[in-house]
């Protein structure tokens, strides 16, 4: 009885334009700047994984990493007004998180840091190794990780960002607060040393 399609008059009074789409990151940022916390929540969810891993690679302690990432997100929200529109958000956020993690590592002082370890592939539920990973022998991988752990911290952090977190050189520079040239030189120095260690 209602709705015979096509018999209604043109809706002159309403210039209807409906958009129904997932919001893009820059839109979420603009909303969050205006105090929309649900938009910010979406940003937190999108970046919390890498934020936590970044904090962990620096702080080397799970609860410090948790706190650093959490504080980083809260601080980033407070200073979001200073975020330059159109700039990449991820390295901007990671820089704040990395600073938080560094502060915690510093205050942890001499406390022993957790050594990085490799996923035990016999255990189900962990990350599935990539085909590349499967090609490497366990021994070779352990040797390589030990060599990374033996690098000086400034080089180890650059290697961690570039290869463990998969950040670009630019992102690594911003996250660690370094010049791009410094990232490049530390990377090549680290790679040379690693090559020497594992290819001996």
């Amino acid at each position, binding site marked *: 009885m209602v709705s015979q399609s096509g018999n209604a008059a043109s809706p002159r009074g309403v210039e209807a334009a409906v958009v129904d789409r997932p919001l893009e990151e820059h839109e979420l940022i603009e909303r969050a700047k205006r105090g929309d916390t649900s938009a910010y*929540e979406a940003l937190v969810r999108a970046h919390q994984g890498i934020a936590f891993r970044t904090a962990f690679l620096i702080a080397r302690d799970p609860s410090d990493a948790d706190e650093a990432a959490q504080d980083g997100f809260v601080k980033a929200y407070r200073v979001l007004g200073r975020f330059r529109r159109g700039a990449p958000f991820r390295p901007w956020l990671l820089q704040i998180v990395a600073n938080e993690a560094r502060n915690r590592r510093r205050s942890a002082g001499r406390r022993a840091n957790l050594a990085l370890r490799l996923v035990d592939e016999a255990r189900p539920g962990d990350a599935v190794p990539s085909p590349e990973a499967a090609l490497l022998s366990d021994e070779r991988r352990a040797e390589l990780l030990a060599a990374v752990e033996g690098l000086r911290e400034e080089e180890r952090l650059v290697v961690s960002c570039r290869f463990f977190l998969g950040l670009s050189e630019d992102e690594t520079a911003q996250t660690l607060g370094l010049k791009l040239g410094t990232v490049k030189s530390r990377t090549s120095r680290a790679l040379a040393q*690693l*090559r020497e260690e594992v290819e001996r």
Partner: protein
Amino acid sequence: MNLEHELRALPIAYPEAPDLAPRVLARLERPARRWWLAPALVAVAAAGALLAIPQTRAAILDFFRIGGVEVQRVETQPRAPVRAAALGREVPFEVAQRAVDFPLLAPSSSIAYVDGRMVNLRWKRYVLSQWRGEQLAFAQKQVGPGSQTVGVDVRGATGLWITGARHEIIYRDPRTGQIVAKSRRLAGNVLIWEAGGITYRLEGARTVADARAVARNLRGP
């Protein structure tokens, strides 16, 4: 395989990543206001009063909720991309009725559209949208400084008449977790009310009296 690839392929065992979002959000939000503003509006509407909220008092009434819609006053309006009219997929009314789990309110004649969990009915210059409020718990309507809000009684329920600048609804899709924006450019105004867990949104009325008359004449539950 070169060394860079080997490094990228190292399966580093990270501790299980925590879900930070709830704790971060808890530190950002100021939830206290929700508790007294909503009952205040309900009380006003229940008294049958027509309460105009002057712009100068907007600061204290910056948050209230009608059904699945949170109304927030904001200093600046969000930029909403405006596209060609798209109220959803045009369907026979019976199909629209089957798309939702509640009986639709409808005028005597309209074109029906289904847009996800929302049904839009279009007739004359009006568009009536209806959806189950619980599904759109994050629904949010942002009202800019160019808008006026008035609490009204609609079909015996609490309603809100919003006039002025354009606005949009934002909600989280419960299935995908994505935040979705539904933007609408309005020449006119909007009346929102809620009954039985369903949120109704009527666009296109020129005056609050017109909007309430249209709402009153809808058929349904």
